[in-house]
Structures are given as C-alpha cells and as structure tokens.
C-alpha cells in the first residue's frame, strides 16, 4: 500500500489509552487489589556482602504473619530475563537469596492482613549475618584472593565456576587489526566512562498474586513481558503454564527495568502459595532504587586513521561493573560491540568486553542498552578526530558512516541484516540547519562567564533483534497477534505486547485499521492475559511497532482476505475485484467494486451477514519473527550554555531527528525524541549513583532527589526543542515503519560532551559532566594557559599519538 493511501497511520488521533490516563481510570500494577488480599513486605539485606548464618521468624509468625525464607523457596537457580536462549543465559539467583550480595537484596519476606502488620512482622524477624569482603570496584573484584561473589553459575544446565568475579567475557574480531593499525597514519586512543544511573520509572515495581482453586495462580505485575513472566513462574514453582495466568496491566514506565521479571514477583507468588490467599507486594521507592540501575561502562577506544580521516583499524576494550547479579551481561557485551561495528566503516576491528560482579545494585537494560555507551565513545572520538584533522564533524561522519547497503549488527554478532533504508544524510543536514551548525563558535574561543556551545552526535538503535538464521539464535524474538471481526464490523486486536507509554499499542491498532480499510476508531485494543493472547517476547530493542506491528499486520491481512471472500459472495463479484476503504461519513469500512459501483456494502454489513446466517466469526491468529533488524537512525544537535562560575551546564536548544521509516504516530514519535533528550540530559550532566566503598551502601539511601532525575525546570523551553523525521520507507517494516523510542536517547551523552567541548574547548570523557568536574577542568585549563603564556612546557594530554 502506498503511504498516501494510509488513513490512520500518520494521523494525529488521540491515543486509545489517552482518555483513561487523563481521567485516572487506567489501571497499573499498584492499582490492583483483590478480595481477601494480604500485604507482603520484603526483608532486605543491610549488608553488601554477607553470609546468612541464621534466620528466626518465630516472632513474626507469632504476630500472625506468613514468612517466606530461603528454606521455603525452590532451590532452582534462574535468570530473570529469559529473552536470551539457554546457551546464553547465565543463571545466578534464587527467589530469595542464599547469601546477601548487595545492600537491599531480598533475604526473606512476610505477608500479613495489613501492610502495617506486615511491616511490624518484618521488624520482628531476626537474621544473623556474617559479613564478607565488600567489593564495590572492578579493581577489588579482579584482585587475586578477592571474596567470590558467586562461586558458580548455571549455564545451559551446567555448573560453571566464576573466577576472579568475572561474569562473562566476549571478543569479536573482524579483519586483521594489527595489519590495520600498521597502515594507520594517526592513532587516537581515549578511555570513556559512563555511570550506573537509576531508571526512575514513575511506577515502583508492584505485584499481586492470587492462588486459584485449581492450584494455579493469577498474577498482576509490573512487566515488559507477561509471557516471559508466566514461563519463569511456571518453571520456578513447577506449575503447568495453563495454570499460570499473568494479566496485562498498564505499565507506568520501565525503560528496560522490567524486561526481566522483577525481584518482587516470584517472592509474592511464593508468599501467596504459602499463605493460600492473595498477596500484594508494592515496592517503596527506596526499595526500587536498590533494585535496578543502568549498565555502566569503562570503554577504551583506539582508532587508526589515514591523514584524510579514513578509518583503517579500531580496537575497543570494555569493562562493565554489573553489580551483584548477571541479568544480561552476555547480550550487553555483544550489543556494545555490535553497535560500535555498525556506526562507522571499519575494515579491521578487535573488540573485547568483560563483565565483572560487584556488591552493588544489579545492572540491567535501560533505554538504549549498550548503545549510549558505545555512541559516547565513538561519537566523541570521531568528533575529536575531525577536529584534529581540520574536518567538519558532520561531513566527516557522513563520509564514513555505515548506511544503505551496509551491514547492521542488531544486537551483537548473532543478529545482522543489510541496511535497506537510510535517512542519515537528511537527518544530519536538517539538524545542522535547524540548530545553526555553521554559526557555532570555535572551540575555546569564548571568554565571558556564560559560554554557549553546539555539539552533535548521531547513531541509531536496532529495530528488534530479528535475523535470517533458522537456529543458533542468541535471543528469542517473535510476536503474536489475534485480530477478530465483531458482529457490528468493529474489530478487536488482542496482543500481549506491552506499551511503555510510547503509544505502541495505539500504533499497531492503526496499522490493523489501515490494512483492513476501516477507520482507526473501529479497532479496539483488548485487555488480555497470557491465557488469551499469543506469546510476545518483550517490548525491548525498539521492536514494538516493527516486530509486534508486523505480526498484527499479518493477522490483519488474513482478516481482510476473509472479509473480501464473504463480501464477494454477497455482492456476486470476484474477491479480487473488491477493495475496502474507510468511509468517514459512515464511520465504517466500505467494501466495494470499483468497476461496478453499485456493488458495495459496509464491513459491518459483512459481519452482520455472517452472524445472522451462522457463518462464523472472521478472525486470525498469527505469530511471526522479523528476519531483519533495521537501524532506527537518530541525530542529535544540542546547544548548551556553561556557567563558568558555577560549573552548571544548561540545555538551551536541541534539534533532534529520527529515521523511523514511516511515522505511525507523528506527535508521539516526536514525544519520544523530546523524552529522550530529557533523559539524555540527565545522563550526560547530572544523574549518578554512588556506593559507599566501605559499606557498599547506596549513598542516596534511596532518596529519589539524590538520583537527580531532571525536572521541568531543567528542560529547554518547549519551542526550543525541534524535532524532524527523515522521509524513508523501511521495506521490511509494517507499512515501512521501524523503531524509534530507544534510539531517541542513544547519541545524547555524546552530543552533550561535544557541545561542552565546543563551548569551553575542553573534552570530557566521563559522564555526568557535573559542575564540580567543569570547574576543575576550567581551573586546569587556566593554569595551562598561564604556563603556556610564560613559555613553560605544556602538560595537557596531546590528543594525537604517533
């Protein structure tokens, strides 16, 4: 179908869940309550690393509480994120811990009729700990003789020893990197560091579990995948999947933190099964902040170039402090290397990544996964190389990026595809024009207190992790959808795919409406659960519209063919001669024969004909995997203003571009970019987490303001954030669409670092670029300038080696 024929795709209708969200009637996991429900509370370790010597719950039980200890839970070790296939799945945790590995780790849990009584019972529990060495840095973890955080983990059914607290290592080699560097005329090498920030999703992780009379359970929880949660709960508690029902409820943000089954979910199920009644656990914000953070990174990137800037070789070494559990370090390391490989053409590359345990909050996916970290290193170093060679960074990047016809690594070496749509030149030219790229100052040329700078970075995220191979996948990637025609001509879309808030479900309903040929309001999104829906792996990797939408499109095609089949009978024409189009006046889809104008009926007429003649329900149930993982390109141009007296950096303007193929929800896609800027600004400039090096305690103690989530006051003025879209069509996507949301943040921190360089002439290789760091760097710059003016030797690091 031509994009000009699309009616719902690309329109500005209200999102289907909008009305319930503005009126407060939308139900999220914390809003669930069921009859006879008790409340659960979790005892969390005050120690970062300790053996649990003894547990005494008798006083809690005397208060009437039900307690769940390590002795009560299945001893099966699992990994809470079952997106990876078994050979890539590192299993290192149990429902409650056998040993405390970070402050805030769940040691046991209690349930009682009221939350207050549960809290009292929790305080009555006695736990004796034997503290072990607290490991908060990678250096400590790797040292010979360091206490092992995990002795072994389970991998594909085998117990694998963990040495020196190294959880996973991965290497990727392309070409001959030694030969490549031998050909290089200039070599640049820098080390970049990013922080372990908190997701700060608005909804703290919450779960309710109701045991059913048949021995099964019903669960309502914060999750990005109801089906993966169901499979895991079935495995852990030995329940057949037809007795585990996980219900889809709205998600109050997650940003990756609920790709895995959240830690409270299996605990709540254990309590409910033991208590024999429904139990709800609502995490406090403090608990939530101790439960999940972003993967940090320490990346040393070395690039060899010819004098004209052509890249000939690259080497990247990444070290990742994953905290107390290995949730998805293996795909993270693969993704990081793959994203690097997909940014610029590199004939020879060597990548090595290492993930290391520590006694800190476990790291997990957060918007962009390993991409922001890779983008930070690559986009900043490319900017530095361009400056060193006297090239314009935009031109330089356009000359060497991986684009149309190139190979894109969707998320590591196992998911690759040929790039078939590429809006990068349009994105960069438009962004440069909107921000006034050509008028930006020379780096370091300003002298006043307030100094402005413009920086740019580009990049992408993958759209899903589809690939062509029939077996040997590292990750599961498929979606399902059911579409059915109701007796009045309206349609129901039943899909377990979770919407993070970006409008994914709304977008997919539009795709279904346009494929069949009915107005958008005719397609409703059904409430569903794991019993009534098909499997969907999880909403991650910006795959919702691209992969989930494609599955729904497949079902819609089948429904359309059936409508045409029956309409053709009634109208006495061949089905091939009929078309269906939305009729705004009728508010219906109309089936008609262009060659015989009088042969027409509404989709509602078809449905009623089927109904009164008992001919059955038109429906389709389809499941599919995309065999591609196209890049959703994105471009960032930001203008910052640095206050050289306070060190504060203000974001003044931004021009953000997205190549998401056909834009299904224009205003919502734009909203993804603006939201990405806010989170990216926080990541680049202010957000951070610190753990006490002695106690391993989170320095913020779980106070959200100390996580420094940006507020409205820190955002640029609304009209100073400009967004634009590339005019592309992804041939493998539903109606030409690919991903958008995750990409929206990926180049942000690099763009901010480059903008600060433009303002001050100083490069920062670590985020957040806090006021303290800015002031220290300015003082260093001043001292250096004094020395230079006095003719002393320069001590600043030279940017170019060899």
């Amino acid at each position, binding site marked *: 179908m031509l994009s000009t024929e699309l009616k719902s795709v690309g329109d500005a209708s*209200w*999102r289907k*869940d*909008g*009305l*319930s*969200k*503005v*009126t*407060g*009637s*939308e*139900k*999220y996991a*914390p*809003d669930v*309550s069921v009859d006879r429900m008790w409340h659960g509370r979790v005892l969390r370790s005050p120690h970062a690393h300790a053996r649990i010597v003894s547990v005494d719950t008798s006083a809690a039980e005397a208060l009437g509480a039900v307690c769940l200890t390590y002795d009560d839970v299945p001893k099966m070790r699992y990994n809470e994120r079952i997106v990876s296939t078994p050979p890539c799945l590192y299993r290192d945790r149990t429902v409650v811990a056998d040993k405390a590995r970070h402050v805030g780790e769940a040691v046991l849990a209690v349930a009682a009729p009221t939350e*207050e009584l549960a809290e009292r019972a929790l305080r009555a529990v006695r736990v004796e700990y034997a503290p072990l060495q607290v490991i908060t840095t990678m250096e400590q973890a790797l040292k010979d003789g360091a206490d092992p955080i995990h002795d072994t983990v389970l991998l594909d059914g085998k117990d694998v020893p963990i040495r020196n607290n190294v959880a996973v290592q991965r290497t990727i080699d392309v070409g001959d990197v030694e030969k490549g560097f031998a050909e290089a005329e200039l070599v640049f090498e820098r080390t970049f560091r990013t922080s372990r920030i908190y*997701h*700060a*999703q*608005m*909804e*703290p992780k919450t779960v309710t579990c109701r045991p059913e009379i048949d021995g099964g359970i019903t669960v309502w929880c914060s999750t990005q995948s109801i089906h993966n949660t169901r499979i895991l709960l079935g495995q852990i508690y030995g329940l057949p999947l037809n007795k585990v029902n996980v219900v889809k409820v*709205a*998600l*109050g*943000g997650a*940003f990756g933190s609920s790709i895995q089954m959240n830690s409270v979910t299996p605990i709540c199920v254990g309590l409910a099964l033991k208590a024999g009644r429904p139990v709800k656990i*609502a995490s*406090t*914000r403090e608990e939530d902040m101790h439960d999940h953070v972003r993967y940090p990174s320490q990346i040393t990137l070395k690039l060899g170039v010819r004098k004209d800037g052509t890249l000939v070789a690259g080497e990247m070494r990444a070290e990742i402090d994953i905290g107390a559990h290995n949730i998805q370090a293996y795909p993270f390391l693969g993704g990081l290397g793959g994203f690097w490989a997909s940014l610029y053409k590199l004939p020879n590359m060597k990548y090595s990544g290492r993930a290391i345990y520590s006694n800190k909050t476990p790291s997990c996916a957060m918007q962009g996964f390993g991409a922001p970290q890779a983008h930070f290193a690559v986009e900043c170093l490319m900017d530095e190389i361009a400056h060193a060679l006297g090239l314009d960074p935009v031109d330089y990047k356009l000359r060497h990026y991986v684009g149309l016809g190139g190979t894109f690594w969707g998320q590591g070496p196992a998911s690759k595809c040929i790039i078939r749509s590429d809006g990068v030149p349009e994105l960069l030219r438009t962004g440069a024009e909107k921000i006034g790229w050509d008028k930006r100052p020379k780096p370091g040329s300003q002298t006043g207190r307030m100094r402005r700078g413009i920086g740019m970075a580009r990049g992408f995220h993958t759209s899903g992790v589809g690939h062509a191979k029939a077996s040997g996948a590292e990750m599961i990637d498929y979606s399902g959808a059911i579409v059915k025609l109701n007796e009045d001509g309206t349609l129901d879309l039943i899909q377990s795919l979770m919407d*993070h*808030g*970006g*409008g994914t479900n709304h977008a997919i309903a539009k795709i279904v409406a346009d494929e069949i040929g009915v107005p958008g309001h005719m397609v409703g999104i059904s409430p569903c659960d794991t019993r009534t829906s098909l499997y969907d792996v999880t909403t991650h990797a910006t795959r919702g519209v691209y992969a989930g939408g494609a599955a729904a499109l497949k079902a819609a095609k089948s429904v359309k063919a059936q409508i045409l089949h029956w309409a053709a009978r009634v109208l006495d024409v061949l089905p091939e001669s009929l078309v269906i189009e939305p009729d705004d006046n009728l508010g219906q889809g109309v089936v008609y024969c262009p060659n015989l104008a009088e042969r027409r009926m509404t989709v509602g007429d078809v449905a009623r004909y089927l109904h009164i003649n008992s001919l059955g329900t038109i429906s389709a149930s389809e499941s599919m995997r995309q065999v591609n993982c196209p890049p959703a390109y994105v471009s960032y141009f930001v203008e910052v203003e640095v206050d050289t007296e306070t060190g504060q950096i203000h974001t003044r303007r931004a021009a953000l571009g997205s190549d998401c193929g056909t834009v299904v929800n224009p*205003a*919502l896609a*734009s*909203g993804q970019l*603006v*939201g*990405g*800027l*806010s*989170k990216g600004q926080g990541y680049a400039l202010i957000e951070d987490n610190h753990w006490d090096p002695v106690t391993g305690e989170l320095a913020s103690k779980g*106070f*959200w*303001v100390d996580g420094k*989530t940006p*507020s*409205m*006051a820190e*955002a*640029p*003025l*609304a009209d100073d*954030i400009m967004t634009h879209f590339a005019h592309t069509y992804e041939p493998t996507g539903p109606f030409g669409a690919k991903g958008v949301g995750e990409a929206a943040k990926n180049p942000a921190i690099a763009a901010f670092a480059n903008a600060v360089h433009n303002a001050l002439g100083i490069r920062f290789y670590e985020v957040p670029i806090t006021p303290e760091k800015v002031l220290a760097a300015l003082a260093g710059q001043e001292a250096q300038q004094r020395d230079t003016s006095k003719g002393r030797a320069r001590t600043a690091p030279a940017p170019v080696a060899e």
Partner: protein
Amino acid sequence: MKKQIVRFTLNGTPREFAVAANDLLLNVIREQEKLTGTKYGCGIGECGACTVHVDGRPVLSCLKLAVEAEGCEVVTIEGLAQGRELDPLQRSFLDNNAVQCGYCTPGMIMIGRTLLDETPNPTEEEVRSHMRGQLCRCTGYASIAKAVMGAGEYETKAFRMPAE
C-alpha cells in the same frame, strides 16, 4: 491502631472514613475509596504523583494525614471531569500528546489545574515554576508545558466523553 472518624467532602460528596491517626490521605483515597487515579510514586514528597486538591490548593497526599482533611473539600483526578465532560486541561493533555506512560499524568493535571485557576493563560516560565516539583520520566516535559499553557483555549469548548 485505634480508629477515629474523619469527615471531608470527596469529589463533591460528604464522606466519613474510619482512619488511624497515622493513615495518609493517599492511602485512604486509594485503599478505602479505591480511587486509584492518585498515584504513589515516592511516599516522601519528591515526585508529585499523589497530588490532589484540598480546598482548591495542590497537596501532596502522601505527606498529608487523613485526619488533617477534616472538614475540607478534597478533589482527586476522578473528580475533575464534570459528569461526562472533561476538564479543559484533560482535553489539552490529549490534544498536546502530553501523556505517555500516564503514571504522572493525574498529578500533573491536578497541579496544572491549580495554576490555571489563578492564572488562566500562564507563560511557560509560570508553568515551569509552578510544576517544577512534579517528575515525569517519559515526556521530557515540553508537551506537558504546552498542554497547560494551551488549556485556556478549551475553557469554552466542552468535550463529552463517549457514552457510558
């Protein structure tokens, strides 16, 4: 803990609740009345998701004891629409696509409403100043600011929700 009776008007209806001295207004609204549009986000006044109106002023219901509401007019997000008619700000949130995950939305609308009651056509600076204590992780705030600034346009235009 011993319960006492607290009386206040909730969304226009005089009500009585048996509450403990330490019960929070947030919990009474959510758990006793099952009005779950008012959200728990942090419990200590950091995020604004629990904002309700008490006598027309924005109040963080996670920091307000239920007994303090004695004799007050309490309005939650569920009480903002008049019958089937949306508040202009609710409509403006929809038209400006100021809703993503929606978890902060009720609190945002409630505090935005109190600004509009005093300043029907606020500037962006006024909106930022009034709403700086409200966190949203999805939108980046621009659409929310525009929704509040633009709400005045809807004051005279009614929008009715689809029939029950």
